[in-house]
């Protein structure tokens, strides 16, 4: 019985080491795992796939480096999908520290898909006070963004001349952590009827299912699993798919530890009762 007491009181650094190994070893060994696609991610994929060529997609970078490992793969996959479908992309953001991540992704994906800044995509930058901006650009984007983030007038980009508000945007993709995705759905989806797909961290995904269930979201991509599913759908595995074996092993470890911890607890409790 001392065994269970010892096990229950295991030094936390041993647990840290076990977790580190559970994550590192699969990354190094790269075992193959089958990725099953779920309905919310398939619908997100179809929302982009069904857009006519030349449609405008607005992608909002509503996350920052603290969530980048989960959400950045989604951005890269969606950009690849949009460019493959010859859609026009407008990049914006609601989190100050997140916008450069969008620029990094664009500079990774655009050259490999032969897309040109100003012709196929534009980065319009960021404005503080996101709810006001979300409602404000429902009337006219130029009320907030006269130029792109480099200071070039928006009207100097050919495809932007026809884009004034949400009526000219085929799909809004919010890649978010925190409550920004909720704000897009409530303020923009509710008021302007804009079609919205959300890619979010695992922490936010449970909360967003209610919007998916009510039809307020055209699709939902949740966490690293969701990102790997989207990569599978566009047939271009990336960092999310690479991380899934490690995710699997880590989850298995945690479930095992929970079982062991509770088994020890139940045995101790029974012993005390007897």
């Amino acid at each position: 019985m001392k065994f269970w007491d010892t096990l229950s009181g295991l030094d936390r650094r041993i647990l840290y080491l076990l977790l580190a190994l559970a994550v590192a070893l699969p990354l190094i060994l790269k075992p193959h795992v089958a990725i099953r696609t779920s309905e919310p991610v398939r619908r997100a994929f179809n929302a982009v796939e069904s857009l006519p060529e030349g449609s405008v997609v607005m992608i909002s970078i509503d996350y920052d480096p603290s969530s980048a490992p989960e959400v950045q793969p989604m951005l890269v996959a969606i950009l690849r999908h949009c460019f493959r479908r010859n859609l026009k992309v407008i990049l914006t953001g609601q989190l100050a520290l997140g916008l450069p991540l969008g620029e990094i992704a664009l500079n990774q994906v655009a050259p490999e898909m032969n897309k040109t800044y100003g012709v196929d995509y534009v980065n319009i930058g960021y404005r503080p006070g996101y709810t006001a901006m979300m409602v404000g650009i429902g009337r006219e984007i130029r009320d907030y963004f006269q130029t792109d983030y480099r200071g070039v007038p928006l009207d100097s980009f050919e495809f932007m001349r026809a884009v004034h508000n949400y009526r000219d945007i085929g799909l809004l993709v919010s890649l978010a952590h925190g409550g920004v995705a909720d704000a897009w759905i409530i303020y923009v989806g509710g008021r302007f009827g804009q079609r919205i797909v959300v890619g979010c961290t695992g922490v936010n995904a449970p909360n967003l299912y209610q919007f998916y269930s009510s039809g307020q979201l055209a699709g939902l991509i949740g966490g690293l699993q969701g990102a790997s599913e989207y990569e599978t759908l566009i047939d271009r595995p990336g960092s999310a798919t690479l991380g899934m074996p490690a995710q699997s092993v880590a989850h298995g470890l945690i479930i095992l530890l929970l079982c062991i911890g509770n088994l020890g607890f139940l045995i101790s409790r029974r012993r005390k009762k007897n």
Partner: protein
Amino acid sequence: MLLNLIGTWVAATLTIAILSFLYKENPLYRVAEHLYVGISAGFAIIYVWSFDVYPMLIQAFQRHLAEGNRAEAWILLIPAGLGLMMLLRSIPKLAWISRWPMSFTIGIGAGLGLVATVQGYLLPQVTDTLRPLVTVNNAVLYVGVISTLLYFYFSREHRGALGAVSRVGIIFIMVAFGANFGYTVMARISLLIGRFYFLLHDWLHVIR
């Protein structure tokens, strides 16, 4: 290329410095922590200038003057003034002036939120809950929403019928919290995978 190499080593050092906290708090961790706060604060100031003050005040002012719209240009002094008044919060004797811009932002937030909450959240969510009870899923959803709402009704003691429904509500709430925990674990592990990938691939080149 050299800058990228130096950068990778700087990033790896900072990553290990933060991870060293897992062993115990140490000066290396505190250096990284204070660097993070300082750099983030500096970043925020540059952001406010680049994406707020410069384009929405200075460039807008110049543009209106160039277009001959003098009234529009000078009206921009109002939000500029409100912004500067906000900064007076730091001076105790003049802090009361910051109530005006604060009230302005709160009024905007309340006004937007009042309508948006009803139109964008309440109505769609209630409408979706009121589905025909012809499938198990619809029935479970309906029972779950009602029982959860009733659980949080504390104006009456949870006894009798209300008590029974509240207990059903707790079941749904526990399932929601468990699902939340499961997804949170997934999220945090994903972040760890990201950092380990950087260390093993970008820094040590163990992963090819």
